[in-house]
Structures are given as structure tokens and as C-alpha cells.
């Protein structure tokens, strides 16, 4: 079922097409001579020339195609023959006035150069190992063929939306959750530092150094003094906290009195002391 969705590429289509040009009307004039038939060994009919540029992925692809048609080994290409076919191709395409990508022309020049160098007598040199003029072209063809193959391999891997489908199921009713942002202590301190720096501009404000445990205790004492009721002064102290705890509570109470947040009442001398929140009165 999946196989029939994999269609053949255009190059292959061209290859399968009839070989005869089937027309005696000159296709074009090339170097003054009328071109009636497409060059021999070209298996692309005239109407396929329109897709010529898309059919091949560039000059290397076209060369590989020509080499394969000749059943040649890349390592053993007959440069003259391949060059001739390549030039015929280029000529036909140009004759049809299709715009030709510059790469094809560069390759044509390269082939012509290789061909001419191979016609020259080989010069032996002591120091330089002679390099076959085809070597670089062969290297490139081999390299390109590798990745052409890799692309085909990649295309045939099972992939999502073709052979693989990720399973998903409907959701039940989900509890709504509201996540809280995380805060680092350092962020908090930086924020405070920022505000203190700004506060310094307003000289009327000074945030002095203070035992924070005292302020914490002030808060907790205030919290216990809810409502309008008086609370026994001694109940503000927790002897289990030890001397330090008692001192903190005492300082906190004094601070609360100073800030006029609580009032302290003593009914008689040496009698029980009561406190309550001032705002509650």
C-alpha cells in the first residue's frame, strides 16, 4: 500500500520514455546546422527537455546518469565519450533556449579541460606524482553519488505521517492547576537592594539594621492579639525557648509599644499585665 505512493523521480521517468525524437522539424540551429534529431544516446525526448533542469540535481547528477547509461564504472570513465554526450545535452538545451544554470557550463569547461589534458603526452616528473586529470572529477562524482544514495536511503526510512503514527488519546477532565513561579533568595535580595538604593535618594527613609528575629516575633505577637481581647502579658513568652527566646519576645513587645501597635495595661501595682492590639480597641 505504501509502495504505490512512492513515485519515480523525473529522471527515471525520462529514462523510461521513448528514445526517438519522432519529429523531422529542426529543433533548432546549432552552429548554423539544423538539429533534427536529438543527440544519440540521449534518452530524453524533446518535451522532457522542459523539465531537464529539474530532472537532474546539477551537472554531477547528469554526469552520473550518462555514466550509468554507458555502463561505465566511475573509476574508469571514458572522458571523451562522456564529454561528447554532455556537450550534446547542453547544446540541445541551449538550442531550445532554456535557461541553463551556470554550474552546467562550468562543468562543460571542466570536461573540456580534462579532455584536452588527456590528449597531451603525459609528462613524467621526478618530484610530483603525476595526477590524473580525471582524478578530481572522479572524486567529486563518487562523493556526490554517496550522498545521492544517502538521500534515497533517508527517503526510504520509515517516517512519521507515512509509516509511523504517534498514538494519542482523548483527555479526561483535568483538574485545573495554577503553577507558581519559582523565586531564588538571591532574586529577593537583589530586589531589596534595588529598593534600598532608590530609598537612599529619599533621605527621609532609613532602613536600619535590626534583629530580624525581633520583627518576626513582633508579627507573631500581633497575630496572637487578634480581636478586642486582652491577653496576659506572660502568655506572650514561651519559657521553652530559653533565655534568648524570652529576650526576643520582650524586645518585640517593647518595639510594638514604641510603634504604638499594642497597648499595655496594668490594673494595679504588681498586678497582672495585659496587652492588646491598639487597632482593635
Amino acid at each position, binding site marked *: 500500500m505504501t509502495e504505490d505512493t512512492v513515485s519515480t523521480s523525473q529522471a527515471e521517468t525520462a529514462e523510461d520514455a521513448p528514445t526517438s525524437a519522432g519529429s523531422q522539424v529542426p529543433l533548432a540551429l546549432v552552429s548554423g546546422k539544423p538539429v533534427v534529431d536529438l543527440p544519440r544516446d540521449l534518452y530524453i525526448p524533446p518535451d522532457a527537455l522542459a523539465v531537464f533542469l529539474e530532472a537532474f540535481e546539477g551537472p554531477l547528477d547528469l554526469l552520473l546518469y550518462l555514466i550509468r547509461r554507458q555502463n561505465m564504472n566511475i573509476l574508469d570513465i571514458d572522458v571523451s565519450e562522456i564529454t561528447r554526450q554532455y556537450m550534446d545535452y547542453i547544446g540541445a538545451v541551449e538550442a531550445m533556449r532554456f535557461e541553463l544554470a551556470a554550474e552546467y557550463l562550468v562543468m562543460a569547461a571542466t570536461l573540456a579541460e580534462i579532455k584536452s589534458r588527456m590528449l597531451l603526452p603525459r609528462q613524467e616528473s621526478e618530484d610530483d606524482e603525476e595526477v590524473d586529470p580525471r582524478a578530481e572529477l572522479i572524486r567529486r562524482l563518487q562523493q556526490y553519488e554517496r550522498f545521492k544514495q544517502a538521500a534515497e536511503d533517508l527517503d526510504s526510512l520509515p517516517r512519521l505521517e507515512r509509516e509511523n*503514527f*504517534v*498514538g*494519542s*488519546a*482523548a*483527555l*479526561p*477532565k*483535568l*483538574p*485545573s*492547576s495554577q*503553577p*507558581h*513561579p*519559582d*523565586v*531564588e*533568595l*538571591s*532574586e*529577593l*535580595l*537583589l*530586589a*531589596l*537592594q*534595588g*529598593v*534600598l*538604593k*532608590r*530609598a537612599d535618594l*529619599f533621605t527621609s*527613609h532609613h*532602613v*536600619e*539594621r*535590626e*534583629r*530580624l*528575629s525581633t*520583627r*518576626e516575633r*513582633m*508579627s*507573631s505577637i*500581633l*497575630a496572637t*492579639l*487578634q480581636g478586642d481581647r486582652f491577653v496576659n502579658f506572660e502568655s506572650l513568652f514561651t519559657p521553652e525557648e530559653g533565655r534568648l527566646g524570652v529576650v526576643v519576645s520582650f524586645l518585640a513587645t517593647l518595639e510594638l509599644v514604641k510603634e*504604638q*501597635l499594642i497597648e499595655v495595661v496594668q490594673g494595679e501595682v504588681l498586678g497582672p499585665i495585659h496587652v492588646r*492590639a*491598639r*487597632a*482593635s*480597641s
Partner: protein
Amino acid sequence: MNDENLRKIQAITEAALLAAGKPMSLEQLRELFDEGERPARQVMEHVLALLEAACEGRGFELKKVASGYRLQVREEYAPWVARLFEEKPQRYSRALLETLALIAYRQPITRGEIEDIRGVTVSSNIIRTLLEREWVRVVGHRDVPGRPAMYATTRQFLDYFNLSDLDQLPPLSEVRDLEEIGREIEKNMQAEIEFDASAGDEGEGAGEPASDTDSNQTLH
């Protein structure tokens, strides 16, 4: 229709329902099959019953809804599944952090006092967020006109920041000293790296410019 055939139809049905991710009618399910192999309606119904039974004890179940059958995550696992869809929490604004810091260091403190120090108004949203998060609470009302609430930090605040009491916050004098802060952060980060290699990804961005309106300060 032999067992093997039924099992195959069942697997295909399950596969299709999971791939579709939406309800499919009995007819739609039957149409997955070529005419020659298409199961009869009764067979399809039987297969759906088999599939329903096969989901016993799994993370999902077969549900019949108006437009057909669908596979649905079991409701009992909703609490865990819900975590997938939790939105990434927004960062708190600089204004909120400053307010929180002032409540921590100057408690009990009223909103007006915070505004005096910050030089800008404190939005009700900020106070509400801090109350909802249970990092601050109202510990009383100041005996001045309007009887404003006084805020203090909570035990949850201390727990969250891993403090046993407020004294463990660095003293203000150190907070004023930028270098000290830098060292502090470095120390914290060092600790984070030591205890949790992944924690190092967060928390450095604290120095971002305040995003809200408190940049245009006015004198009171």
C-alpha cells in the same frame, strides 16, 4: 472469523483510534478495511467489546461518545496527566519581589509604608498574589486612620526559602553591598551546583530591569 483474524481487526481498530485521536463511528472503522476483508457490523461490535476488555487495567479506556468510539485517558490518572499541560509559570515582577522583601525585613508593615519606601504605589494584585501564595499574612491593623492591614511573612515563606527563621536572611547592611550580594549569589549557585546539577540553569536572571511602572518615581 477465526481468533487470529479477530485479533488483527482489534489491533487495527486500536491503531486507528490512537492515530485518529478523535472519535470514529462504527462505519468509519469498517471502512478502514478493503471491501474484501471488511468485517460485518456485528463482528466490528464484537471487536470493540474485545478492545474494551483489553484496556482493563491500562492507562486508557474505550469510550462511546455521540460521534462514535474513542480511546481516552482514564480519569483516575488525570492528576498526573494534568502536569503535562501546566503552563510554565510566569516570573514574578520586580515590584512583587521588592514588596515581599520589604515585608520580610520590615514586618509588620502596612502597604502605605511599603509605598513610602518604594516610592510608588503597590498594586492590589501584588498583595493578593503574596497572600494567595501564603508567603505573607495580615497580622493586625495599624491604629491610624483607615486602619491599614499590617503584613508579615509566614512559615511557608521561610520553608520555601529554606530558612529556619528570619535571622538567616542576610542583614540589611550586607544587602546594601552589591559585592556582598554577588558573593552570596555565587555561594548559592555553588551550593545548587553541588546538590543539583540541573539547578544551575535557573535563577541567574534576577537582575532584569523592572518591567512595571515603578521606574518613574515620584516624591511623596
